[in-house]
Structure formats: structure tokens, C-alpha cells
């Protein structure tokens, strides 16, 4: 079954609005990362956050391990934030990576 569920599947915001992306996982995660895929297809790692809250630039991730969920908050969204955001987790006891299906974010002027 699907290990990682992301919501919403897609999101449209006006420039300057904040975005909240959710990630829920079906088993205990020992590692949790957020990734970003540009509209052209290139992929980058954004944040590693297995627990607690982490910030980088306009991104804030909060992971509550025992509730099996993580969120990614993007403040003051910009047009260049458009793309697809993935969370990925490693299950406890497995050295393997499971990605969600992603949230497609579109930021309009």
C-alpha cells in the first residue's frame, strides 16, 4: 500500500500567499525529507527533518514523528516556487525510500 500520502494534490496561490503542504505516512519514519521538482523536471533536496521544526529561508518544516505526519510551510510564495513538492520517508528497520505522489503548486501573479 501507499506508504506516504500527500495533500493537497494541487494548490494554486496568488503571489505573496502562504502555502501549507501535508505529508502523512503509514508507518514509523526514521528519516523524512522534502524535495522540489521544477516545472522543467530537475529535482533538488529541500529539507531533511525527521522530527521537530526546521527552517531554511522561506521554508519551514514541522514533523511530528509519533503522529506520522510532516508539513512544509512556504511563506510569501513567489512565482518561482511553482513546481511539485515531494516528501519521502524511510521506514524504521528498512533502508529504503518511499516518496509521496507530490503536491503540485502553482503561484500566479
Amino acid at each position, binding site marked *: 500500500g501507499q506508504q506516504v500520502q500527500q495533500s493537497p494534490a494541487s494548490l494554486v496561490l496568488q503571489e505573496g500567499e502562504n502555502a501549507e503542504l501535508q505529508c502523512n505516512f503509514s508507518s514509523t519514519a526514521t528519516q523524512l525529507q522534502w524535495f522540489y521538482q521544477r516545472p522543467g523536471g*530537475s*529535482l533538488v*533536496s529541500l529539507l*531533511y527533518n525527521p522530527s521537530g521544526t526546521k527552517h531554511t529561508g522561506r521554508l519551514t518544516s514541522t514533523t511530528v514523528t509519533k503522529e506520522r505526519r510532516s508539513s512544509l510551510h512556504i511563506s510569501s510564495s513567489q512565482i518561482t516556487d511553482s513546481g511539485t513538492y515531494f516528501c*519521502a520517508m524511510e521506514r524504521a528497520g528498512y*533502508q529504503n*525510500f518511499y516518496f509521496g505522489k*507530490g503536491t503540485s503548486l502553482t503561484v500566479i501573479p
Partner: protein
Amino acid sequence: EAAVTQSPRNKVTVTGGNVTLSCRQTNSHNYMYWYRQDTGHGLRLIHYSYGAGNLQIGDVPDGYKATRTTQEDFFLLLELASPSQTSLYFCASSDDWGGSYEQYFGPGTRLTVL
């Protein structure tokens, strides 16, 4: 700057054909990964390696072989390609296991199996 390159960028083959996808990283990273990306599935880990000669099985290994010939080079082999293997393939590298280390991705190879 970390660099991961893939070749070819696009490949079309027929069912039953033999395909090799190549990946090279110049980051001196220990770990390398092969993923496939399909619409509606996100990325799925096929194989990974933590050094030359090492190979580990990922989440969807069936129908794929892989070989890590050097620290820099990781190959994905499809010996009897099937239409279900039509996908976008990404290679990535990281200094240590990618669960807690930043992964650097290549540009992707689009494979079509007719």
C-alpha cells in the same frame, strides 16, 4: 559544485530490447541511486549502491539490474525491456545514506519501450 550526469537523455527501444542507462557523479559521493518516476506514483527507488561493486535492492527492482563499476559510475540495465518500463529515470548521489543526507539528482533519462 555537485554534478550528476545521465546518458542518454532520451531513449526509444522495442519490447524485448536491451537498454543501458548511465550515470556519472563527480561529487566523490559514496551512495548512488536509481529512481523511476511515473505519473501518479512520485519517485520509486529501484536500486542503490554505497560503493564500487556494491548493489542494494530498492522498492521496485524487478526487471532491472544495476552495476556500480567505479565510485563515479552507476549503470541501470534493462535486459528484456517491457512497455511497463516506459518511464522517466533519475540517478542521484549522496555522501551518505540519502535518508539524512542531501541527494543530488541528474537531469533524468526518458525511456520509451514500444
